[in-house]
């Protein structure tokens, strides 16, 4: 038995299992309890829900709030906005559904104690932009976590979920999940009637601009390890728009946010010589995307495109003109508190480099690509829509249920719903949870059962990297080079290099083509084989191993989707060098994929985009 002898297997049974205790997971946990008073509701999180997920550090704005009570915006307006920003392709039914529920979510946050700034004259929430409201959100996550803890039967912190479990009595039905405690090493078997995946999107699948000590300062949290995608992909759930990665224009090195600067402080960008540059690229962009360049606001990817072209033309860096706005002491305070509230690292960079935006216009940069589902991008699982307004072919079960029965999702996990951000992710968690309660109630005695053989086999797979290390380590004197195993960081760096060079990362100016993708997929295939030989020195490295496993599988999905879509839909996010133009005749559609775990094969197909809002 060796390594396996001292480990306990802990069984946790629940009605609803929520995987991931970030914004979506906390929303799902809260709402599950409201509708399922007698249900056993378990939330499992790989860190500590008090400070986990993308909002761990706090936020200075809530970027999705309609303001229906003041007639500021209607849900339809938000659908039009997200659709425009994503170059026409969003799930309008899902987006509408979030938009109509997001105000009640934000009102609860305020009631719970989140300080929301008010306009002193009107008493209304202080707007940063049309959709954004400003908050003092340092404790946004602790407040939301408190609500989730009050609701859950139990929250399990520090458990990394590695795989979902399937029902042994019925095909294509979820039955729970397995994982391990990163402190004790105990193996956990979660059996559940319904599972809601609220895990994180993907940072660190493309090589970051900072590859040394600064590699942790990615735009999206380094702990967002693509579990949102890998968990459903492994069990054959259909995914959508995985090619739709996002590149962010941000302050250089710290990736500090620019939203408040553009919208509230009214700062603007210029090239190295003090010139406006966006309009110069109008004709160039129109050539690529046609009249999408004439839409308002200009889609995020197209604004990136102008920056990239201007830099390639030799007129970088692009700078944010802050000197004027920062003369106003109030705006200066907003500018700094904006960072301290959500990207403290940017304040550290500016302090270290003596950048005072009152005197220096700071540099901007475009980030490495990320894959996620809640910002100006919408990769994720293909989910059933709301019963009252989803088109028939977007509806096959309960709201936010994936193509696997009993498997629900929210937040980064669910595709097609760009611009939901923190509040929309929490609202989507609530939507998924209410549907999951209905699902559990309707199951009656027809309950899923897990196979003992299945989870025992998974236990061996989960802990194998520690065995690999234990055995392989004896072969070598010392150091990190082994002929028998790879360390997780070594595997991660290989992944990031492949994705960067072949799938459209920073080193190729976000450009790829079919030959590059073909070669990239071959190399990813070899990396996938090598993943059986990862060596984990301890439980922390075992967590890094499983994060890497999830990243690799999600990356493979991204590469296949990028290959499938033979057009450049989002210039500024990525370019298909062999299909440089947007092609609405053939590609005004969603791309869907399904993975077969047994054969390792991916099936791709198109799905129609239904425009249900004018």
């Amino acid at each position, binding site marked *: 038995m060796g390594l396996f002898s001292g480990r306990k297997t802990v069984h946790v049974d629940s009605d609803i299992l929520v995987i991931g205790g970030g914004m979506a997971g906390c929303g799902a946990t*809260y*709402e599950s*309890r*409201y*509708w399922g*008073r007698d249900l056993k509701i378990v939330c499992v999180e790989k*860190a500590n829900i008090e400070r986990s*997920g993308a909002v*761990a*550090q706090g936020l200075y704005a809530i970027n999705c709030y309609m303001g*229906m*009570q003041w007639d500021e915006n209607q849900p339809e307006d938000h659908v039009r906005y997200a659709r425009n920003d994503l170059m026409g392709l969003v799930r309008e039914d899902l987006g*509408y559904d979030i938009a*109509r*529920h997001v*105000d*009640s979510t934000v009102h*609860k946050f305020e009631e*719970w*104690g*989140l*300080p929301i700034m008010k306009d002193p004259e009107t008493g209304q929430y202080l707007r940063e932009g049309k959709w954004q409201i400003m908050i*003092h959100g*340092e404790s946004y996550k602790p407040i939301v976590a*408190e609500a989730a803890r*009050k*609701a859950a039967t139990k929250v399990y912190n520090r458990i990394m979920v590695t795989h979902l479990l399937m029902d042994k009595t019925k095909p294509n039905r979820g039955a729970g999940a397995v994982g391990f405690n*990163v402190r004790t090493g105990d193996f956990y078997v979660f059996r559940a009637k319904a599972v809601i995946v609220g895990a994180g999107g993907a940072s660190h699948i493309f090589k970051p601009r*900072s590859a*040394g*000590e*600064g*590699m*942790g300062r*990615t735009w999206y*949290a*380094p*702990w967002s390890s693509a579990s949102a995608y890998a968990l459903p992909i492994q069990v054959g759930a259909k995914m959508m728009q995985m090619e739709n990665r996002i590149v962010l224009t941000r302050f250089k*090195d710290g990736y500090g946010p620019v939203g408040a600067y553009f919208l509230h402080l009214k700062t603007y960008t210029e090239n190295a010589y003090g010139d406006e540059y966006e309009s110069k690229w109008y004709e160039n962009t129109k050539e690529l995307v046609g009249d999408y360049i004439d839409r308002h606001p200009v889609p995020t990817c197209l604004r990136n495109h102008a920056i990239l072209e201007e830099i390639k033309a030799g007129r970088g860096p692009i700078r944010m003109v802050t000197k004027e706005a920062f003369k106003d002491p109030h705006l200066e305070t907003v500018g*700094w*508190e904006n960072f*301290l509230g959500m990207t*403290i*690292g940017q304040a*550290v*960079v500016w*302090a*270290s480099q*003596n950048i*005072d935006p009152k005197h220096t216009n700071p540099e901007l940069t475009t980030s490495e690509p990320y894959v996620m589902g809640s910002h100006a991008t919408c990769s994720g699982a293909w989910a059933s829509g*709301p019963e*009252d*307004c989803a*088109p028939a072919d977007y509806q096959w079960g309960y709201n936010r249920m994936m193509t696997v029965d009993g498997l629900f999702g929210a937040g980064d996990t669910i595709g097609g719903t760009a611009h939901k951000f923190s509040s929309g992710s929490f609202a989507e968690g609530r*939507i998924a949870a*209410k549907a999951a309660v*209905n699902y559990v109630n309707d199951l009656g005695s027809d309950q899923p059962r897990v196979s003992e053989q299945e989870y025992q086999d998974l236990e061996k797979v989960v802990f194998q990297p520690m065995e690999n290390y234990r055995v392989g380590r004896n072969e070598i004197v010392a150091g990190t080079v082994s002929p028998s195993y790879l360390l997780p960081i070594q595997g991660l760096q290989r992944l990031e290099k492949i994705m960067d060079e072949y799938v459209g990362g920073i080193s190729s100016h976000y450009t790829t083509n079919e030959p590059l993708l073909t070669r990239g997929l071959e190399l990813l295939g070899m990396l996938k084989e090598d993943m059986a030989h990862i060596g984990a020195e301890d439980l922390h490295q075992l*967590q890094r191993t499983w994060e890497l496993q999830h990243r690799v599988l999600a990356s493979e999905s991204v590469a296949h989707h990028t290959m499938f879509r033979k057009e450049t839909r989002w210039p500024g996010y990525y370019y298909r060098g062999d299909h440089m133009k947007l092609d609405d005749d053939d590609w005004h559609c969603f791309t869907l994929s399904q993975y077969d775990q047994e054969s390792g094969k991916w099936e791709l197909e198109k799905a129609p985009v*239904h425009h249900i*809002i004018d």
Partner: protein
Amino acid sequence: MPTFVYMTRCDGCGECVDICPSDIMHIDKTYRRAYNIEPNFCWECYSCVKACPQHAIDVRGYAEFAPMGHSVRVLREEEKHTISWKIKFRNGQEKNFVSPIRTTEWGSIKSPSDYEAPSPDALKAQELAHEPESLHIDALPTLPVQKN
């Protein structure tokens, strides 16, 4: 480094280990004090800095792009409901900021179980918990039923 721990202040209590979202604050077995085991997986989120009862944790900007001689210090006072920041530039310039962090008492959020139980009909409707009241409008918006 991002975060690092001062030897003379840390008492090894483990609050940072408990809170770190990246699982990189661990206790050194020899010194029985905390340290950052993986600086390149640190987001500089300051969760551990804020949680440390001894104020033993600080941040030195990423060596890759941050020149030395700066500091960004924080004091999070739950009982006062405030967070205070002191930014010190490499050239000695200082900036100070204080913000509120919560308007209600810690622990005061009501469990969803403390609200009146919803009816079975409500479970089948589109309204979520506390709706439509918490929308602050008369009714949940709906679209015409879609046919395709």
